């Protein structure tokens, strides 16, 4: 059974069709890219998968669970984590707290536990704390644990956002243009990071990315969309020599 399965996914905004009959199947530990010109509807696909939008038509199943009608936090608790095109960290909370709060659904104790500081509460909180520190440690963010995100560099903020997503222990990680606005050095770091994540954790990574460098060096499979419709699907090599793609896409990109 595929991890993620999207069938005939369609989303309309009024007259505009943002996503049109989009299909995809993602298996365990895949690393797939979704590319396409600006406004092709890539982010909309992610929004549909992460439950932020409801599909106009079609269905999404994650681990065999139909996510239609679920609210985003429910979808997330099925093991879908994502980052955002524009960074959306909680600016007034320390990096550590950012990573603690994102484990909210795993808190798993009641309000009463929280008031009475029951054993259960203590165990859970310790667990959350531990996971947070481990992640920070692993992702070389430890020394920033008590900083406010808005005081960090852009690259670091990206890193924190990915860490926050990973703290959800996802089986599917959606990265929405992780390399956007990074300098070449940071991009190198990012590539390393993503690969490391993919090697260390049992997670499928699906990314939207414009920088072919990143896509080509990471992904085993690429899906190309334009005007909401899929125009190509295959290995990097196939995509690179796919006339449709070249026509629609490579024209306005820099490799």
């Amino acid at each position: 059974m595929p991890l993620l399965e999207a069938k005939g996914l369609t989303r309309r905004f009024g007259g505009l069709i943002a996503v049109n009959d989009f299909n995809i199947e993602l298996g365990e530990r895949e690393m797939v890219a979704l590319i396409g010109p600006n406004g092709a509807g890539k982010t909309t696909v992610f929004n549909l998968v992460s439950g932020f939008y409801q599909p106009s038509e079609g269905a999404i199943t994650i681990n065999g669970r139909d996510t239609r009608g679920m609210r985003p936090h429910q979808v997330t608790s099925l093991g879908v984590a994502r980052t955002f095109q524009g960074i959306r960290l909680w600016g007034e909370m320390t990096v550590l707290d950012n990573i603690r709060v994102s484990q909210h659904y795993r808190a798993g104790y009641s309000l009463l536990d929280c008031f009475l500081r029951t054993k259960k509460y203590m165990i859970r909180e310790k667990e959350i704390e531990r996971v947070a520190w481990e992640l920070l440690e692993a992702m070389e963010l430890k020394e920033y644990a008590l900083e406010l995100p808005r005081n960090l560099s852009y690259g670091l903020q990206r890193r924190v956002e990915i860490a926050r997503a990973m703290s959800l222990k996802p089986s599917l990680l959606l990265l929405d243009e992780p390399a956007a606005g990074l300098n070449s050095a940071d991009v190198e770091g990012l590539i390393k990071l993503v690969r490391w994540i993919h090697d260390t954790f049992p997670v499928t990574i699906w990314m939207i990315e414009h920088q072919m460098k990143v896509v080509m060096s990471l992904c085993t499979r690429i899906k190309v969309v334009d005007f909401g419709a899929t125009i190509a699907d295959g290995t990097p090599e196939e995509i690179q020599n796919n006339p449709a793609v070249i026509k629609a896409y490579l024209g306005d990109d820099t490799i």
Partner: protein
Amino acid sequence: MQKHTFTISLFAGIFLLTVLAQFGVINQYLVSVIMLMGVNIILSTSLNLVNGYMGEFSCGHGGFMCVGAYVSSVVTVLCFSKNHILGAPLLPPSLALLAFPLALAAGAAVAAVAGLVVAIPSFKTRGDYLAIITLAANYIVISAIDNMEIIGGPRGFMGMNATVNGMEGLLDIPWMLLWVLSGTVFTVWLLRRFVSSTLGKGVPAIAQDEIAAEIMSVDTNRMKLIAFMLSSGLAGLAGGLFAHILGYVNPHSFDIMKSTEVMVMVYLGGMGSLSGATLSAILFTVLLEVLRPLEIWKWVVIPLLLILLMQFRPEGIMGNKELSDLFPKLKKYYSFK
């Protein structure tokens, strides 16, 4: 041991105050000011959960206070004093000590339920539209009570003293002071524990980026529900205490003016700071009393002071920091975990 210094000194303080009041070292007036101070602390800290931590703009806190005040008063009056409509007392005064906290709890509970009126719309709407809903809720509560003859309508409602006397009949100490102080400590303790937990940290997450919160697995609706109901419930508690301090309630003691005062305390203290809310509540109460001699000018001077303060500290006294953040030394004197 040192970790508990704070807690111990807190309870020692309460004990000391009660003793002082008992032997009239601090007079009735100061006692009543301290009690109202406590009520104000409860109000400002509880509203701070919504207006500070959650970044909403609720300006109807007085309404929930009103609900709590009336419910708990009706309960105690039903139980312990003969009322021309509600009839003879149901319980002997000796039970007052047991029944009083229950009455307070009842008031708080009903107020919390009333909080739903605001909480449910808050799923869909935010900011100023929600502000209006709270405002309307406040008006509705007051107008509703105005129309309830059975609890006196605009004439107000009294007879709560019987309960206080009942408690003093058992043991003659300033019970209300004790209740208010413990209520205050309880509130701050409760809120402190809530906002310091991972669960509670979902609330500021909503304030700072609701979408990120929702997608990062925070059940925003549940958090909003908790925040609003907790806040209004505690306001109800404050109302219950207030009613039994005065021994008389009048719906128009809880109008927009009251809500405004509470809001002022919250923003004066700083959004998202419990110690700030506490400090500002104390400061505000003291200000109200110290400036009495100014008579009419008092209500010109107080706003002026507040405006100036905001000009100099646009984030309120404490900003969103706690005392312990600013004086880390304090940390080793208490443990809230």
